[in-house]
């Protein structure tokens, strides 16, 4: 633990949030703003043959009605081929925008939107993914998970010779992120330059995409997104609305605001795709896995091929000599899916970890013992050592805290009153990614420091952790540090996704501080009488506002003093940190173990997660206060995925039937009982200078499988199709 790192810190953006003062995208007030309102298609597939906007245009307050007929064409940069609205009469999903009405007030825009009439040449949509899995085509390779077919050894051959085999199919429906803040943008142009307030996890990509689509230099696009009200992946890609908002503001020569309704959020961005998986396991009678074959298919749209990387971790977790994974896609007349918390990982591990549980019963072996028996000491796919892997300790500590030893092996053997009780466990896994990131530090002669980097803080506590890291390595108290983010006038940072922000941006903060330390040392050593004479940068440390000898801390000089002696008001460092080459020699992963108790009401089929223990190993913990919240939130996301979350599509019309928080059930607070999160800290010198790994995704990865396994243990019923709603539990 450092002076600041590893200690409990309250969030620096907290006061703004508990007083309602923090401004989100829709809340930036620009005088003269006109309001847009989206009109959505009522069919899923076909062509608009006629769109009548006359009545809407005559409606009070209406400024203009945009349709595919009068919307300028966006340039399509090759790297970004996502769906763009109002570019053609073609309809590729239900509730696709077919017009935007812009009016003086929101009410006027909405009223006129009701008056836009479209006629269509309608085609039958195809959205029944599960009915079409047989048609799946091979997925394109993924930049993160590699080739869509991957093999180790000869999985088919080994499977055919296995003493024990197991095979099952698992399904997961589409799910929507449903962050509490609806997406919004406010855009205006001044002197040919665009400024846009947007809800985004990635302001730089919004900038480059808008610049390319609108045909202006990137430097002329300024994207601002200081506060994001939750995102979980749905603001990673540049959704269609900022393109529209910027376009409309340019056409109308005035500021325009566009805000999604909750209903529009169900087709206004992507979603976790429908997923079908088949797992085959081959094992010895003693439990050693000898073959794993994991076939997955997810749905995509007709305009893009979204590979959800469902099988991404299957070959990296158990010591199995023969493995094969295949990822396939089925085109559907639905919007393109996108990353949703722990994309691919939580889906793939639901199937793999459920199957392993099923195998354990077949082997008459404790599920935890089966996992330990197949514990991988080196990466089974490539033989690389893990940089660190404290999964064994996660299993041990999690089991102990949970009381796993009290588990009765036979299903349906634990009961209290009307409730059947079941225990289930699972394994979680995620990467230790790092991306290039740049940070600017201005060290001021008044003893403060200002840092900026165009990352995002969608809620995990990025403002706070960057402040802590800066305080630690600049030797300045946190309250004298400000960290700014979410603005393309700041240095470039990667998208906030993949659980890599602290590793990437935090390492850049560290790197900048190291450079500043060296520069301060050089300046200090201009003074021949300096107590730091003869010391190298590694022998000094910035602490308590001083640059001092690491070993003899009384020997030092104040930072302010160094700057003042040079007549400097401030010292600026812009530092880009890139991942170290040494990472390539290792397998870099974060792990976790989940233990869950469920109680199942047999009369009603209701499942309640009464207890959950999650032990995770994701390197060093910078701020326990916010880190526990990440895992806690992940557990509850897992509960939602396991029990309630389900985007339901009426395949006759290709229409989402439950686009509201009343009908799409995210967990409410009464669904959350006892949840215990624990960290097994790892001292990882490989992953990055800070020794941190990803944690935001990790927290949910094993939870749905653990719950499903517990439901089986409670009831003797194996439910392979999420969510495990009461009707399925009662029927199974």
């Amino acid at each position, binding site marked *: 633990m450092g002076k600041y790192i590893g200690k409990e810190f309250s969030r620096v953006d907290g006061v703004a949030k508990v007083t309602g003062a923090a401004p989100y995208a829709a809340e930036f007030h620009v005088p003269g703003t006109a309001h847009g309102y989206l009109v959505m298609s009522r069919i899923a597939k076909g062509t608009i043959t006629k769109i009548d906007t006359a009545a809407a245009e005559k409606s009070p307050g209406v400024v203009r009605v945009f349709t595919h007929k009068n919307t300028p064409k966006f340039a399509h940069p090759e790297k970004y081929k996502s769906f763009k609205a109002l570019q053609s009469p073609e309809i590729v999903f239900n509730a696709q925008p077919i017009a935007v009405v812009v009016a003086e007030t929101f009410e006027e825009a909405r009223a006129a939107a009701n008056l836009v009439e479209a006629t269509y040449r309608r085609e039958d949509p195809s959205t029944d993914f599960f009915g079409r899995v047989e048609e799946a085509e091979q997925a394109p390779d993924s930049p993160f998970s590699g080739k869509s077919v991957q093999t180790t050894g000869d999985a088919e051959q080994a499977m055919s010779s296995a003493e024990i085999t197991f095979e099952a199919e698992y399904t997961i429906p589409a799910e929507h992120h*449903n962050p509490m803040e609806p997406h919004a943008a406010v855009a205006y142009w001044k002197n040919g330059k665009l400024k846009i307030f947007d809800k985004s996890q990635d302001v730089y990509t919004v900038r480059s995409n808008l610049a390319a689509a609108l045909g202006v230099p990137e430097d002329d696009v300024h994207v601002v997104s200081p506060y994001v009200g939750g995102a979980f992946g749905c603001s990673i890609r540049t959704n269609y609305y900022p393109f529209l908002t910027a376009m409309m503001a340019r056409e109308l020569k005035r500021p325009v605001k566009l805000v999604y309704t909750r209903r529009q959020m169900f087709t206004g961005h992507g979603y976790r795709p429908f997923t079908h998986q088949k797992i085959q396991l081959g094992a010895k009678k003693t439990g050693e896995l000898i073959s794993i074959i994991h076939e997955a298919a997810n749905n995509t749209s007709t305009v893009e091929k979204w590979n959800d990387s469902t099988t991404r971790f299957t070959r990296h977790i158990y010591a199995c000599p023969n493995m094969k994974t295949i990822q396939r896609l089925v085109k559907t007349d639905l919007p393109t899916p996108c990353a949703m918390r722990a994309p691919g990982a939580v889906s793939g591990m639901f199937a793999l970890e459920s199957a392993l549980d099923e195998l354990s019963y077949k082997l008459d072996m404790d599920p935890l013992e089966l996992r330990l028996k197949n514990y991988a000491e080196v990466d089974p796919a490539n033989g690389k050592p893990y940089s660190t892997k404290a999964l064994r300790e996660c299993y041990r500590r999690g089991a102990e805290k949970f009381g796993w030893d009290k588990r009765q092996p036979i299903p349906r053997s634990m009961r209290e009153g009307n409730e059947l009780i079941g225990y289930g466990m699972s394994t979680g896994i995620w990467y230790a990614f790092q991306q290039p990131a740049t940070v600017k530090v201005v060290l001021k002669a008044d003893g403060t420091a200002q840092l900026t980097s165009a990352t995002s803080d969608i809620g995990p506590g990025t403002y706070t952790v960057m402040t802590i890291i800066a305080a630690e390595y600049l030797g300045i108290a946190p309250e004298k540090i400000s960290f700014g983010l979410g603005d393309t006038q700041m240095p470039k940072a990667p998208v906030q996704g993949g659980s890599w922000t602290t590793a990437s941006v935090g390492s850049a903060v560290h790197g900048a501080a190291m450079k500043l330390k060296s520069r301060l040392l050089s300046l200090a050593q201009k003074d021949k009488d300096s107590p730091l004479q003869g010391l190298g940068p590694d022998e000094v440390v910035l602490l308590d506002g001083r640059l001092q000898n690491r070993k003899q801390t009384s020997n030092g000089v104040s930072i302010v003093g160094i700057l003042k002696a040079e007549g400097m008001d401030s010292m600026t460092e812009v530092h880009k940190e890139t991942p170290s080459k040494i990472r390539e020699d290792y397998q870099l992963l974060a792990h976790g173990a989940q233990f869950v108790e469920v109680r199942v009401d047999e009369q009603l089929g209701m499942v309640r997660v009464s207890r959950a223990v999650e032990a995770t190993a994701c390197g060093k913990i910078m701020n326990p206060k916010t880190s526990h*919240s990440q895992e806690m939130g992940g557990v509850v996301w897992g509960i939602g995925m396991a029990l309630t979350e389900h985007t339901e599509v009426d395949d006759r019309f290709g229409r989402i039937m439950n686009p509201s*928080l009343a009908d799409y059930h995210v967990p409410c*607070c009464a669904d*959350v009982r006892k949840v215990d999160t624990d960290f097994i800290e790892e001292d990882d010198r490989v992953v990055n200078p800070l020794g941190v790994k990803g944690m935001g995704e990790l927290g949910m990865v094993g939870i749905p499988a653990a719950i499903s396994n517990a439901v089986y243990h409670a009831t003797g019923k194996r439910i392979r199709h999420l969510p495990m709603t009461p009707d399925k539990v009662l029927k199974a």
Partner: protein
Amino acid sequence: MSVKKHYSFLVNGENHTVESYPANRLLDVLREDLRLTGCKEGCGEGECGSCSVFLDDVMVNSCLVPIAQVQGRQVRTVEALSSDPLGKILQEKFLEHNGAQCGICTPGMLVAAITLLRRNSQPTLGEIQDGLAGNLCRCTGYKKIFDAVADAAQVAREQGVLEGGKA
């Protein structure tokens, strides 16, 4: 059809008169006319609780209140909670326990927590869950919010801001 009318009411202790259609939502009047953006719109149908405010000291979803029913009444929003001793304690405890993450549900959670603690100054976990049942949060997993409310209750009792016991 209706015509705009003048509606006068108190917001956070200040008199306001707005010109509005009678069916306009209190939420829109607060956010758009008065630019009090602390209350949020998460769903527009009373499911998420992000728009919760006090109307005559009673918690309501401001997305479900037409302005015609607010004439002559008092509204209090998150922006004024710091001046309420219980509100201030809750704000501090939400900070201390990391009860706020992305921040969208937070204003509504605070309003619900005040409502709960006024009725019941020593809530059990189940009673806290019941009191916050109308407020959805997608970030925290709720636990830190429960902790914040329970801790605030204790501090409020110790400081005499709340009397012990249940109503």
